[in-house]
């Protein structure tokens, strides 16, 4: 252990600390805000550790009769949009990879570049005409704009790296293409499925643009519900921060737990919806 090495290590840990602290401090402050009574939240200089912890803020959010509705809405929209995307996107990624139809990626690229709002105008009119506004169907359908390209993009990448030899052997043995896909290609691509699923869930759960236009009072998802809380309780920071943390907690938990898959997916596709 020469002093130069030790100095280098100290420098490294210092830089790691500096780099990670904006994220850590932000989320700690978010937690602190959510656990304080108004007196502490309105005091100057700010209080970091309150004398009395306001668990009540969380209880209030859970107890509000609408929270469960919004939570269910978010769950249904994200669940359906991700499920449908996996259902159509995984086979499509397989087909595109095997046909080497790289030009079809242009559609995905266009979808990636297009601002979410431009989908909203025509689809809003369509849903109005079909009389679907006021149900969750419009939001499920429009979330496909986010989830389908993510799934297709990631699955193309995975199926391109899986070995062809096994599939060819199965074909020679008389398996149909569907059987090859179902029993040979799909099991090998399981890590890819996890990556596509996790990213589709996160970006659909986080989506806000589609909800503010398409959601009515009864069909709000959690991000829209939180946004509407801002306009009504401008001054009660505690419950607001608690609500914000509850909305994003599942995503943060998933990020830390599935950190490896998320990093793999993001570096491969650098996908983001909306």
């Amino acid at each position, binding site marked *: 252990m020469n002093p130069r090495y030790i100095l280098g290590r100290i420098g490294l840990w210092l830089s790691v600390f500096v780099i990670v602290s904006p994220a850590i401090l932000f989320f700690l402050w978010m937690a602190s805000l959510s656990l304080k009574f108004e007196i502490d939240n309105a005091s100057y200089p700010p209080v970091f550790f309150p004398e009395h912890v306001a668990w009540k803020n969380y209880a209030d959010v859970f107890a509000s009769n609408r929270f469960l509705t919004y939570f269910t809405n978010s769950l249904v929209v994200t669940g359906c949009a991700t499920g449908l995307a996996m259902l159509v996107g995984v*086979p499509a990624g397989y087909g595109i990879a095997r046909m080497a139809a790289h030009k079809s990626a242009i559609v995905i690229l266009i979808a990636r570049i297009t601002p*979410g*709002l*431009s989908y909203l105008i025509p689809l809003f009119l369509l849903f109005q005409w079909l009389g679907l506004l006021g149900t969750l169907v419009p939001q499920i359908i429009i979330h496909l704009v986010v989830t389908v390209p993510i799934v297709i993009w990631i699955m193309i990448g995975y199926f391109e790296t899986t070995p062809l030899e096994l599939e060819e052997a199965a074909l020679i043995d008389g398996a149909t*293409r569907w059987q090859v896909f179902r029993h040979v290609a799909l099991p090998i691509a399981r890590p890819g499925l996890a990556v596509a699923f996790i990213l589709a869930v*996160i970006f659909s759960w986080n989506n806000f643009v589609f909800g503010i236009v398409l959601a009515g009072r009864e069909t709000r998802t959690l991000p829209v519900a*939180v946004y509407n809380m801002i306009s009504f309780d401008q001054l009660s920071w505690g419950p607001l*921060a608690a609500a914000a943390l509850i909305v994003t907690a599942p995503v943060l938990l998933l990020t830390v737990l599935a950190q490896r898959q998320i990093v793999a997916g993001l*570096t491969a596709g650098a996908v983001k919806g*909306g």
Partner: protein
Amino acid sequence: MSSVTQVSPVAAEEAAAAREWRPPSYWPFVIPALVVVLAVIIFPWVFTIWMSLQEWKVGSPTVFVGLANYLRLPTDPRFVEAVGHTLSYTALSVLLPLVFGTLAAVVFHQKFAARGFLRGIFIMPMMATPVAIALVWTMMFHPQLGVLNYLLSLVGLPPQLWVFNPTTVIPSLVLVETWQWTPLVMLIVLGGLAAIPTEPYESAQIDGANFWQVFRFITLPLIMPFLFIAGMIRMIDAVKSFDIIFAITQGGPGSASETINVYLYSVAFVYYDLGYGSAIAVVFFLLIVALAALLLYLRKRLLWTSQLGSEA
């Protein structure tokens, strides 16, 4: 695997031919997705272009007006202003994450304990729900009670009005955007660093190059392609940025932080001027494509001049 390499050349050729042969029977796999893409991506686009040629306010009949909606754009001061806001917001939101993301990637490329876990923490800002984040930033920006002004006072700086002052609102929003999206740049550059061979570093060490020289003359040129991709993605996302701006300022104070996307929202879903809104959507998309093309062109120029330089 070794048996494969020993088969006769004829069999190898046959195998290659089989690989080349792309039967149409893969189409059934793609068709369901094709239907979805047609319905939610292609149809909206065609419909938007058609609508942009109509005078269409919700509740009144549609009238074909040709290019009138497009001609209205340059004479609409709010739109022109929004373009300016979008460009300055985008320029800052591309450059700052590129700088910080590269520095962070260099650090995360080293080996240290709990690196995976810390990387997970580091990418939390970009994965967290934007609205939830925006809400907390709004509280932090509060001029009297916000924690940011308290932090400024600790280092002896005067308090700021942050998003409540027209001159500081865009830099303040860029601060949030940078905090949020530096991790994405870090991840892409980190991928680039992992692909760099070790030989140049070894010879640099023998030549006695210092840390900065190694970074400037070896690392930076080798990760350039990745920086370019990161910059491109960042540009596309920054131009379209909506959640953070809308949730924190709604384009205010006044219209000081109104970007094209926020203005588009107002035109289409506050004033319900759908024809004009569609024209804005089309021009907005073309602007993003134009910016992407400009970046590609600059990259070509840069490569070309550097090649000339090395040949000379």
